């Protein structure tokens, strides 16, 4: 029998027992709705976590540092703490290294993570606090979604953004009043000293080759002041609180901070280790064009002799967690579908009994066992298709209701709305296909039973 005829006969048969087939279809719908609602929750939560982490800049960022632990350096007995690559690029994290990293394919920028302790004077009050540099790309961080005031007008602007807790310390009653105020930052500048003539100090200095007298570099520390205007106020820690600069309370543009040549903790190590008295960085944050290229960039940077760290491993753990969560949600959601599939078996077995004579007639007229089997499969599949489509619609409605309820709950507590349940298109398609497959599986027994009927017995059946 041709497919259109098969479907026409099947739909006619389904219409003949509209109530029973309708109830069975509703059973499938409930099962699929439960499955879709459960999975939409898992997918929504996964997307939410993914977005949060992605916007924290951790997924597309490689942290580059030059130094291994002191224990490692001692164990290796190496002076530089990192292997020197064949390319000859120094394993010192300085401006040259930064340029090399920035030239790597897929690397968008390599910004130093500069954090230091400074004194802030504002409105006659003085605070010792942590100050950090912020690159322009951090504007997309979710901490700036609720930015009051504005972001830095340029990468070198003498402007500051402060955390709310700092502003509250300044004025607990009216922290917003800090916006537009001028602050004075007092910091320690690292100023290089010219090389000392050999023997002047009377002390013997020793170079790497054991020769002495030509390795006397040094710097002095000078207290400096910088005037900035407070342009922005943020509540959250930038970068999801997962970088060292996240913990600062006052932020300046990285471009500006770099020009200040502020004394960093790495300068002490640099003074004893670097080949020359150049400026070095504690770490660089290399931003990659997509998370998929993080591993490749990490490898390239490691080949330069630097250490790297990315959140990629943590992401894999997170993905594994959500796969397991989805699996369990799917299993719980499928339970209703399993019950519904028993409904299909019951409906079709009843149909085989009721239509026994009709099956006999069809066989007497020339229907093969395969025709009969396909007819019952078509009926099961049609119920699955209808049930799947209705179920997806109900599941989508449940997901919307969950989102609406969550948004209402969050709004009551002054939080922005969040999408915790998502029904992507692939879930719509997969749920309908799954409903049809489950229905066809449920139809195997009744269809086989119908196909095996003895036509002579079936025709005599009253």
């Amino acid at each position, binding site marked *: *029998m*041709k497919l259109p*005829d098969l479907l026409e*006969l099947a739909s*006619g*048969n389904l219409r*003949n027992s509209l109530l029973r087939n309708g109830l069975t279809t509703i059973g499938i719908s409930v099962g699929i709705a439960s499955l879709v609602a459960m999975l939409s929750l898992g997918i929504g939560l996964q997307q939410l976590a993914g977005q949060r982490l992605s916007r924290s800049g951790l997924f597309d960022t490689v942290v580059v540092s030059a130094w291994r632990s002191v224990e490692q350096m001692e164990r290796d007995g190496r002076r530089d703490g990192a292997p020197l690559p064949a390319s000859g690029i120094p394993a010192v994290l300085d401006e040259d290294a930064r340029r090399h990293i920035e030239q790597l394919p897929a690397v968008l920028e390599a910004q130093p993570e500069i954090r230091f302790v400074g004194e802030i004077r504002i409105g006659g009050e003085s605070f010792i606090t942590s100050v950090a540099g912020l690159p322009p790309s951090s504007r997309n961080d979710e901490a700036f979604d609720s930015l009051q005031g504005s972001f830095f007008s340029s990468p070198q602007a003498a402007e500051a953004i402060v955390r709310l807790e700092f502003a509250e310390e300044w004025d607990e009653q009216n922290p917003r009043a800090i916006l537009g105020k001028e602050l004075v930052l007092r910091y320690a500048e690292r100023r290089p000293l010219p090389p000392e003539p050999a023997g002047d100090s009377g002390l013997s200095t020793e170079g790497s080759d054991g020769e002495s007298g030509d390795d006397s570099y040094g710097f002095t520390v000078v207290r400096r002041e910088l005037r900035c205007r407070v342009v922005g106020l943020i509540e959250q820690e930038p970068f999801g609180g997962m970088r060292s600069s996240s913990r600062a309370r006052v932020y300046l543009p990285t471009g500006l901070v770099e020009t200040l040549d502020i004394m960093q903790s790495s300068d002490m190590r640099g003074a004893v280790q670097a080949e020359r008295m150049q400026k070095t960085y504690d770490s660089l944050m290399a931003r990659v064009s997509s998370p998929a290229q993080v591993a490749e960039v990490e490898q390239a940077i490691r080949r330069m002799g630097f250490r790297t760290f990315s959140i990629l491993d943590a992401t894999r753990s997170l993905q594994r967690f959500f796969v397991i969560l989805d699996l369990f949600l799917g299993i719980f959601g499928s339970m209703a579908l399993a019950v519904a599939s028993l409904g299909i078996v019951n409906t079709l077995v009843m149909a085989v009994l009721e239509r026994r*004579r*009709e099956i*006999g*007639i*069809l*066989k*007497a*007229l*020339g*229907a*093969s*066992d*395969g*025709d009969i089997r396909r007819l019952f499969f078509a009926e099961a599949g049609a119920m699955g298709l209808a049930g799947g489509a209705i179920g997806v619609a109900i599941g989508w409605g449940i997901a919307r209701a969950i989102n609406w309820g969550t948004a209402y709950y969050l709004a009551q507590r002054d939080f922005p709305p969040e999408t915790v349940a998502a029904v992507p298109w692939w879930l719509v398609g997969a749920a309908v296909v799954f409903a049809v497959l489950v229905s066809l599986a449920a139809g195997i027994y009744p269809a086989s039973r119908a196909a095996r009927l003895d*036509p*002579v017995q079936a*025709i005599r059946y009253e």
Partner: protein
Amino acid sequence: MDTPQAATVDSSIRVERLVRHYQLGPELIRAVEDVSLEVAAGEFAALLGPSGSGKSTLLHLLAGLDTPTSGSVRVAGKELRGLSSEELARYRRHTVGMVFQAFNLVPSLRVFENVELPLRLAEAERAERRARVLEALERVGLTARMHHRPAELSGGEQQRVALARALVNRPAVLLADEPTGNLDSRTGEQIMQLLEQCNRTLGMTVVLVTHERPLAERYARRLIFMADGRVVSSAAAAGIA
């Protein structure tokens, strides 16, 4: 569409030493026992005998609805024994048409759809199907009732629909299992006239199972008597209509 059997091809029936036994609990039912007979192409034969004599079982064996325990059934040159269920289905689709005592129409389908069923199974094109259904309904005089459901028809009309359904695939052999059993004598007569007309005008071989000897004598050309699963006698009918 699979190639249908034209009524003009060899439509003879040859049965040799046919046996059909059933096991009913501990009892062995010898429904058909060593039956051999031949029905020539275009012949109208009637199988007569008391209930349980094996007439219907023999007809089911000829229709390929049942499989013999032993012996041979050859219809239109085709040996049925050993055919697969798929091959038997194809044989029923194209070589034989069947009419039953209980009409056996599908109650949920309209008259047109009931008659169309064998054509759907044979995968005939939709346009061709309509023409063939109308032709079959016209032959039995029920074109006006084609949109009715079986429950809205009289017994005689239902049997005429069943006959149209049996004819629609233009089978070589028409097998009728007590087609007048549920009808009054006048309506039964009409059905017999239609069967005789099919035999005469279309050249179909007709095998009729009945226990109404007068009707059989009037319309069939040969009477085959059965008892206890065996053919006890075979003779030309006394008065052909």
